[in-house]
């Protein structure tokens, strides 16, 4: 007789995903605003990583901008973060409502051969990425611009056999890759290392990223 086995996740990484329905108008407005402000005045003056001419990174004060499109995105993204926190913690809604959510938020405009090295975000608990424009996806570069999360279970994939090479999503011993679509938001713990693979589209890839901490 086969024993009944119940499989559950331990040491799991919460991974939130949401979509902004009817995002075309908002994304058009954001794209126009960001392209107009792709200037030295708005560039991050203290980048933490080696800057690339193929990627523009704004200052981290994006959600302080008063433009309605930015404020509309702020409400959506921060609500997604808050919803994720509620789903994965034992905070009740009243406790959560009493928390003060603070953020650093910026935009990236990536052009041909732009990328971002693997990194995480110390001094934050939750991070989010929203896709304004996915950019061209060349058929011969299926990994172009992919948002790749490094498996934090260091060394777990060093030994592979037939019984762990094909684990289901969530258990799989490999990086998690996301080809962002317009209007999609991803929420994840800030400790998870992530990178943007080189983008090979001939146009632009535009994203907004936010680091959040609560007090």
């Amino acid at each position, binding site marked *: 007789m086969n024993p009944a086995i119940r499989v559950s996740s331990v040491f799991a990484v919460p991974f939130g995903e949401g979509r902004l329905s009817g995002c075309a108008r908002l994304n058009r407005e954001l794209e126009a605003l960001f392209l107009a402000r792709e200037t030295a005045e708005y560039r991050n003056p203290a980048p933490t990583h080696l800057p690339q001419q193929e990627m523009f990174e704004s200052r981290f004060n994006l959600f302080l901008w008063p433009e309605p499109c930015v404020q509309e995105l702020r409400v959506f993204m921060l609500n997604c973060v808050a919803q994720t926190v509620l789903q994965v913690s034992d905070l009740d809604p009243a406790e959560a409502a009493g928390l003060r959510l603070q953020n650093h938020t910026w935009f990236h405009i990536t052009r041909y051969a732009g990328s971002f090295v693997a990194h995480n975000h110390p001094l934050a608990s939750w991070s989010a990425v929203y896709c304004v424009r996915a950019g061209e996806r060349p058929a011969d*570069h299926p990994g172009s611009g992919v948002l790749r999360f490094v498996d*934090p279970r260091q060394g777990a994939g060093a030994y592979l056999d037939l019984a762990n090479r094909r684990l289901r999503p969530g258990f799989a011993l490999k990086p998690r890759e996301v080809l962002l679509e317009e209007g999609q938001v991803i929420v994840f713990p800030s400790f998870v290392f992530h990178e943007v693979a080189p983008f090979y589209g001939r146009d632009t890839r535009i994203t907004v990223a936010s680091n959040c901490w609560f007090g």
Partner: protein
Amino acid sequence: MNAPATSLMPIFAAPFGVVPITAAAELNPDLAVLFAARAMTHYREPAAPPDPLCFRSREDLLEWPEPAVSQLGRAIMAGVSEVVIAANQYSAAERETLGVQARVRFVIVRPDGHLSGATAPMASWCAVYCVAAPAPTPARMDSAVLRLYAVRHPSMFLDASNYRMRIPFSADHHVWRPVPGQMAVFPASIPHEVALNRTHVDLILVIARLRFADQGVAGAVPPW
């Protein structure tokens, strides 16, 4: 009374070796010509999706009969063995019993190409040997470098006292610029990548997964 001397040392350190291959000057021209000629579908790694900007061969270089390839294979295994012995506690007698197994491929990272971050499974050590490399470009210092991710002991708390720690305590990724004739050796479980090649010259590498076992013990290591 003098204050007691403070002792400071790295713990949980990762070994990283750089090994010069002595015959490189003679081998590399032949290897570069051979690899360029074989950067074609027949020799491509079938498990990896084709990438027009980065060619990865099968991991069967040690089975090639060409003398330059055989000589390099022996040099790689000898060089990695030196690093392994330096990092371990084996006696001279014990080291004689160790056998080495390797899977070796060549990689050509073309202009605008890169090699995505990954670990090397079913192996304990990874070696990256440089056959040919573009000259460094001061304006793009991260072009075509081997980058080892510092993801092993990250701290989410940063302040002024741990933000700018020096090597080997720094939390920065480790970067090694491939130099023709030199080989980097590091634990296979460290995620690593070859950053985008922002020059107009190909970067040609030989990458090996290696593992060691007592030659007298049958089945001491699992299948690849």
